[in-house]
């Protein structure tokens, strides 16, 4: 077991393949020379701005744009009426619902798009918004998801024929209800909790934006846009705008973070495209921070009722009943056949007798979303639920929460393991990983320290979580989005000089693909990573694939790159055999070179083979010239990374302020391509988890007004809220992934919130009787809980 502590200086480390290679992309970023969306200026470009609804629910009586149109710098004002003539008033969501591009009949959430102004500059476009006069007739809003299906609840989606209530998605089930009832009947301990995973927002530092450039002469639509799935976006635009797919080109240059927020197509994008088609010039639209927080993809918002049971000191059963708040339009992100995403991984890391899950989704007068904020579709909600329930059970049983987990884990000899909800976990040694975390934390020492502090009236808490994630969606027989299989392509060309270009369909938002994907090629072909250029973010120059979210990059796209490299290596073997006048099967491989078995002096380097492949010399019989290959990778299964996290918190008894003093994260993500990048991913996800557990919340008042629409009140952790994270690792290679990797980006966000909340409860149970609290654990909410008045976060 290796423990990765403070990053060593690795200036001299230059691995040919896997290892702590410094990032190639840094060179432009440290100079401020990245090219983010708002850095791009096209000749003749004009600027768009969106007028938004001040009401959560209101009928639109009239829209008067005459004063805005009279503004000297305004070129056009687009409303729903104009979009109707283009057939663009409504657009499909990724959950087979429809969403208004601009509201025509009524507005259904505060911040909804009502009109789009195009002007010669950004300031004028925003000035003109104030000149548009919209007359509204306010309607009662549905804010509380638990009341959305009440008889007297106002109907939100009266645009949908046949829609009589606010049900967005009917009850979806997984697991075995009867077997679960039996497990509960046999159990000796049963605990119930109502647990909310409140609405939060990915809030990448760069907001969403687009430049649409339609050329009426050629019919070509060029789009510049920071999104996480450029090929899927292009297909959607072809359907929405009725444009030929091959005449649309999407370029994603540098992206200032995504975290799921940049997966969907937003109304502002369609407005800019419509604007460019109408105006015949490039139209740029970049949302401001309030627009980002109020209207684009929120995350979570799951209201969960759950029971967990145990028998003879071991967890045996779990049942969960969820109401999902999907907002005004159902644009949750997940594969088609999984309306609650992968929430049914809620059986966690435990060898249960049975489990049963029910999820139904409702419409409310809130922004649409349900994106996976740095998690694989709804796994964050699932892990939070089960890890809170296990702690509640441990509290009831008066046992140590780690002991209960250890007694209940799936054994390392049980893999591949079929869960009670139908997942096939590929590999794992959970107890070992838990032990590494306990060792780094000095768990016994922490418990002693806690006892001493309690005696002095100090409130210290130790919280544990153990998660299993399912990432890398996914096998085409099970998973698609809008009918598109969740596969990824890779195209590798080794040039005559031995330098290579690999084109991929994954879309970096900071993950470091330009470095790590070059390392995969380097590992497989034995050429230096600096000789491999990674191309991405241009639909004209990369193979089709579904992009980067759900920790897909390494499990799917990374596998594609490994497989395509091996195809090139196989071709190189045949060419080398011709060069060495022997048979391919008589050659053996070492990094960068094929050589004759038994005569290692006789060999050919990849660069010599590449030179030969493009030369006038003979190729193997029947083989075309060149040294390149192409693949579309269809993963046989998800990969299942896991980890053991321990949080140590101090709660100020006077102010109820929670400080995360230590955070220990031991991840098993299989083989690590670049451990430096992996550690960086973990640090970032832990910070987001601290934010969600303690600070980040999108909430609404009774009128449906969004109360967290800027960074003044949507609080994101700074360097002062984050501890000096302590990382460890175990490595259990994924058996079905070409390089044994499992994906890491989202594990820390998935695993950290329950550890922190468990720690807060651990700090407060003995002294204050707090056995439950909902996130975020702000001082006000912790204080209320300490006084015996817990507040749900609505």
């Amino acid at each position: 077991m290796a423990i990765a502590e403070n990053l060593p200086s690795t200036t001299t480390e230059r691995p040919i393949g896997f290892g702590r290679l410094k990032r190639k992309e840094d060179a432009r970023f440290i100079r401020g020379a990245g090219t983010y969306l708002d850095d791009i200026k096209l000749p003749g470009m004009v600027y768009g701005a969106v007028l938004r609804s001040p009401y959560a629910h209101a009928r639109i009586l009239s829209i008067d744009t005459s004063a805005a149109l009279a503004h000297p710098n305004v070129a056009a004002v687009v409303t729903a009426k104009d979009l109707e003539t283009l057939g663009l008033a409504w657009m499909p969501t990724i959950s087979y619902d429809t969403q208004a591009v601009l509201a025509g009949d009524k507005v259904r959430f505060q911040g909804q798009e009502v009109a789009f102004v195009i002007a010669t500059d950004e300031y004028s476009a925003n000035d003109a918004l104030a000149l548009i006069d919209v007359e509204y007739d306010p309607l009662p809003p549905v804010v509380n998801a638990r009341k959305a299906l009440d008889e007297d609840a106002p109907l939100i989606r009266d645009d949908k024929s046949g829609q009589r209530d606010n049900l967005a998605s009917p009850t979806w089930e997984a697991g075995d209800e009867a077997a679960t009832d039996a497990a509960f009947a046999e159990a000796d301990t049963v605990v119930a909790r109502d647990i909310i995973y409140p609405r939060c927002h990915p809030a990448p530092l760069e907001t969403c934006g687009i430049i649409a450039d339609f050329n009426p002469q050629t019919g070509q639509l060029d789009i510049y846009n920071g999104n996480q799935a450029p090929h899927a976006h292009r297909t959607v635009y072809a359907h929405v705008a009725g444009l030929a797919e091959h005449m649309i080109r999407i370029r994603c240059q540098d992206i200032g973070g995504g975290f799921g927020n940049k997966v969907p197509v937003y109304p502002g994008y369609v407005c800019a495209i419509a604007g460019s088609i109408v105006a015949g010039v490039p139209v740029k639209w970049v949302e401001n921070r309030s627009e980002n927080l109020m209207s684009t993809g929120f995350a979570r918002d799951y209201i969960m009722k759950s029971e967990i049971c145990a028998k003879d000191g071991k967890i045996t059963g779990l049942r969960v009943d969820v109401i999902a708040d999907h907002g005004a339009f159902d644009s949750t992100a997940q594969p088609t056949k999984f309306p609650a995403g992968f929430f049914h991984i809620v059986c966690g890391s435990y060898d249960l007798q049975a489990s049963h899950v029910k999820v139904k989704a409702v419409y409310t007068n809130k922004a649409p979303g349900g994106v996976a904020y740095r998690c694989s579709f709804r796994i964050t909600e699932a892990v939070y639920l089960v890890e809170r329930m296990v702690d509640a059970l441990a509290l009831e049983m008066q046992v140590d929460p780690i002991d209960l987990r250890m007694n209940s884990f799936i054994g390392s000899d049980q893999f591949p393991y079929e869960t009670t909800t139908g997942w096939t976990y590929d590999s794992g040694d959970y107890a070992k990983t838990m032990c590494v975390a306990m060792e780094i934390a000095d768990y016994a020492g922490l418990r002693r320290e806690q006892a001493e502090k309690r005696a002095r009236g100090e409130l210290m808490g130790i919280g544990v979580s153990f998660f299993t994630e399912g990432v890398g969606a996914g096998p085409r027989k099970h998973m698609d989005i809008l009918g598109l299989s969740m596969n990824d392509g890779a195209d590798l060309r080794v040039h005559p000089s031995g330098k290579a270009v690999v084109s991929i369909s994954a879309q970096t938002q900071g993950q470091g693909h330009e470095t790590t994907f070059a390392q995969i090629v380097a590992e497989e072909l034995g050429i230096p990573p600096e000789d491999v250029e990674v191309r991405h973010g241009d639909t004209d120059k990369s193979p089709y694939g579904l992009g980067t979210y759900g920790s897909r990059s390494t499990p799917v796209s990374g596998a594609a790159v490994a497989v395509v490299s091996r195809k090139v290596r196989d071709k190189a073997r045949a060419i080398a055999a011709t060069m060495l006048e022997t048979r391919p099967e008589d050659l053996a491989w070492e990094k960068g070179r094929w050589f004759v078995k038994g005569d290692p002096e006789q060999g050919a380097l990849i660069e010599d083979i590449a030179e030969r492949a493009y030369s006038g010399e003979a190729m193997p019989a029947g083989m075309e010239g060149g040294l390149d290959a192409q693949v579309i990778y269809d993963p046989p299964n998800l990969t299942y990374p896991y980890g053991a996290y321990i949080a140590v918190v101090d709660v100020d008894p006077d102010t109820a302020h929670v400080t995360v003093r230590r955070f220990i994260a031991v991840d098993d993500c299989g083989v690590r391509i670049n451990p430096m990048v992996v550690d960086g991913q973990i640090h970032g996800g832990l910070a987001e988890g601290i934010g969600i557990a303690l600070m980040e919340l999108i909430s609404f008042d009774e009128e449906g007004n969004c109360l967290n629409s800027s960074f003044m009140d949507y609080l994101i952790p700074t360097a002062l809220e984050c501890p000096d994270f302590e990382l460890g690792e175990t490595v259990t290679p994924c058996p079905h992934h070409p390089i044994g990797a499992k994906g890491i980006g989202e594990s820390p966000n998935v695993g950290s919130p329950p550890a922190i909340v468990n720690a807060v409860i651990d700090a407060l149970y003995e002294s204050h009787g707090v056995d439950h609290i909902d996130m975020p654990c702000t001082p006000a909410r912790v204080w209320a809980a300490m006084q015996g008045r817990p507040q749900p976060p609505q």
Partner: protein
Amino acid sequence: MNVTITVNGREASHEIEPRLLLVHYLRETLDLTGTHWGCDTSNCGACVVLMDGQPVKSCTILAAMCDGHEIRTVEDLERDGKLDPVQEGFHERHALQCGFCTPGMQMTARALLDENPDPTEHEIRTAISGAICRCTGYKNIVSAVRWAAEHEAATKQGA
């Protein structure tokens, strides 16, 4: 109105709207797009530049207020083909991922080291607490600033 501002050592005069924010003056008028914008409320720090050596959030400073003042942006960190130790530290310690907060973080770090060449971890965390990074969890940023401090000290000793 007309303003004369020295940006990265070059003085220039421009006719501007009185309401023009410094961040927009830098990005739109001067095409210095290394300074980013991330919020409207002075919370995120992506737009931090140095004004007369002090870190300021350029989204809440009017260009008009900079008349006669000196501004330094990320584009001026590298001089004569030599990276600033802060830039080197960020690369060495993997203190950036998407790169969007990086210019503001680096300028904040530069201002800190100019005032306090040997900051403790807590002093670094406090100094950068006005800036948000969504990717790194700050650990490697703290490490990068220490790297820069140590290398700057070593260079001065060697000189």
